[in-house]
């Protein structure tokens, strides 16, 4: 498991850095500092979104799979299948975008791909890529869930006895969070399957285009996409719960009843939170919009609030060893909370009416993805290489420096959003010229972030290569 985790880290960081470069290119183009062909811009936008989720999700999975072996005997084959399918899927996506010219955005909203200036085969190859990624991740998730349930009966893995007030036997929070998250992952992957089947039906039914209900397709797309990104964050949080107490020389966390309630609520609440993506769809009934708003407000309470309380409680009055790993985790939690506030603001119907099509949206999701989820991943990676004998104590400044430039980068998005600078524009006309200036600053901050992550990647990859080739361990 150690070697395949090292392989994941090497592959993941290389692809992540590549996607960061694409992100910087987009901001430079929006700033007017370089000339990016409009079609190319949207191809890069599509690739950046897909590529980031396409690699960060399995990278987070690799981390939790590694720590899962502390509790259960987790077989290697689901992980290896996930790796194989992910690599094939991402290569196909690269091919789809750069050769096929797909530029519909990750959400490929029906019937957008049929209007797109895309090679005709690109849409179908794209769907195949998504199907391959989804299949690999489904096998991996089911494999991990199976290995958990071999040791823990379902009610124990979900900590239901803790909710009932029974304290023993303790369900480790890591197992609880991972189980609820994997259930959520399976749900959204099934939604992805349903979505792809409908696309296939549409393709087969070509003589009658527009056969499907766009509202249904949009619901399924965001049930799949929004939920997957949410669950990706929770995978990172599982690592936080697993590792954080050890940094403060405290015993492992025990599952309290409120923690069990919180994490059992998550799969349910997240299922409804995605409705906030459909506020602009006037045909969606108003009741559903309100459900979306309420679910979006409730969703952060169990996850963010409980986790934040737990982590702060651990740090307070403790002698924390502030190495690279703990710094990434701690800052990741803080930025996750900040991004969550940005998300709640946007998920409020009255605000969404103004913010929905502005750069506020990339602002909040870059906060909890780049500075939240990526930080969680970097946290476990730092821990992983430290376990492999590489001491990162001398580099504990790195997460703080990335935070400063990273915050500068996302701040440009937030300010742009507040100025109503639209998103999904390749270039800002004079009427929103503020967007150009802020995009330029965003690109500068992002370049520093890239350099610092490159430093981290070189350091980590060289250590991971050693682990990968160390057959003795």
């Amino acid at each position, binding site marked *: 498991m150690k070697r395949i985790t090292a392989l994941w880290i090497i592959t993941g960081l290389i692809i992540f850095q590549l996607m960061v470069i694409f992100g910087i290119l987009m901001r430079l183009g929006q700033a007017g500092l370089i000339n990016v062909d409009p079609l190319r811009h949207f191809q890069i936008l599509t690739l950046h979104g897909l590529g980031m989720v396409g690699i960060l999700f399995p990278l987070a999975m690799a981390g939790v799979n590694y720590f899962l072996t502390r509790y259960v005997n987790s077989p290697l084959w689901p992980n290896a299948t996930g790796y194989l399918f992910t690599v094939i899927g991402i290569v196909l996506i690269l091919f789809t975008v750069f050769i096929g010219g797909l530029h519909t955005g990750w959400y490929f909203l029906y019937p957008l791909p049929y209007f797109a200036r895309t090679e005709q085969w690109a849409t179908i190859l794209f769907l195949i890529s998504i199907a391959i990624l989804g299949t690999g991740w489904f096998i991996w998730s089911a494999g991990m869930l199976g290995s958990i349930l*071999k040791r823990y009966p379902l009610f124990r893995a979900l900590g239901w006895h803790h909710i009932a007030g029974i304290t023993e036997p303790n369900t480790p929070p890591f197992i609880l969070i991972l189980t609820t998250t994997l259930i959520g992952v399976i749900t959204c992957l099934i939604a992805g399957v349903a979505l792809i089947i409908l696309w296939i039906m549409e*393709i087969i039914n070509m003589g009658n285009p527009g056969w499907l209900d766009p509202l249904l397709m949009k619901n399924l797309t965001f049930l799949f996409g929004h939920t997957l990104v949410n669950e990706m964050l929770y995978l990172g949080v599982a690592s936080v719960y697993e590792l954080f107490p050890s940094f403060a020389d405290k015993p492992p966390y025990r599952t309290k009843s409120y923690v069990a309630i919180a994490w059992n609520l998550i799969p349910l609440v997240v299922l409804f939170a995605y409705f906030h993506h459909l506020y602009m769809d006037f045909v969606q009934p108003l009741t559903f919009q309100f459900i979306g708003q309420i679910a979006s407000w409730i969703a952060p309470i169990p996850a963010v609030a409980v986790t934040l309380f737990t982590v702060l409680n651990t740090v307070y009055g403790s002698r924390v060893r502030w190495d690279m790993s703990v710094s990434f985790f701690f800052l990741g939690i803080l930025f996750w909370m900040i991004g969550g506030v940005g998300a709640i603001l946007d998920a409020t119907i009255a605000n969404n009416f103004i913010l929905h099509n502005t750069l506020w949206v990339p602002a909040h999701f870059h906060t909890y993805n780049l500075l939240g989820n990526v930080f969680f991943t970097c946290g476990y990676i730092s821990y992983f290489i430290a376990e492999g004998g590489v001491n990162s104590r001398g580099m504990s400044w790195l997460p703080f420096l990335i935070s400063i430039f990273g915050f500068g980068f996302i701040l440009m998005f937030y300010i742009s959003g507040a100025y109503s600078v639209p998103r999904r524009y390749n270039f800002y006309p004079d009427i929103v010229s503020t967007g150009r200036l802020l995009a330029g600053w965003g690109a500068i901050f992002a370049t520093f972030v890239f350099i610092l992550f490159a430093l981290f990647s070189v350091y980590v990859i060289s250590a991971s290569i050693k682990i990968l080739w160390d057959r003795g361990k």
Partner: protein
Amino acid sequence: MIIIIFMFLAILTSDAFCYTEEYAYINKNVPDISIDSLEGSFRLSEIVSKKPVLMTFIYTRCPQACYVYLNRLSEFFKKREIFYNVAVMSFDPRDSLDDMGKLRQILATNWIFGISKDIEALLREVGFEYKEVDGNYDHPFLLVALDRDLKIVRRVKDFDGIEIIPQIEKDLRGEFTPRSKFQKGGFLSCFRYDPATGDLRISWGYLLILIPPILTSLVVGVISVLSRSLHG
């Protein structure tokens, strides 16, 4: 894997993975052909620069159908104030301006009636296909709305009622035109709307969204049982 196999089958079984319907033509530029009309010779761009154009294609030797079709249009337009030009183009090389003049007399309209030596180039771009059968033509009734930049903003193949005209006019104005292929009701629509009562009822499509959580419960149940039985 089943999905992937299905997708390959979809590719193999489809004639061409391409929407040849209306969607594929929207925003497409048409060639700036020269047109000989009863008012003189113009480039198409000169005509659309004054007003957008709603164009249709016929042939004057048509025994009946073209006349019925044009009559329905002219009866409708007589009662309507329009902000665009209607252009009737012949796709039959045998048609002359005289033939088009006679057609205008029959219809008694002020539309543009024209012929063009470049008509084939235009027909290709708007997707108008026809075939000759015993001196007559088998052809669709095609309406193409062109904006002032010679772009197709709407294309209606197999015109089957004047009800579509107000929608086309909205498109020509650049207004939002909600339209659904499910107007007659579709199996997978999320809701059914009753225009008489204003009631919105949940339909089969929305139930489909419940499938992922239901299937997940089944999948988790199966994994749980299998894991325990294998373990036990």
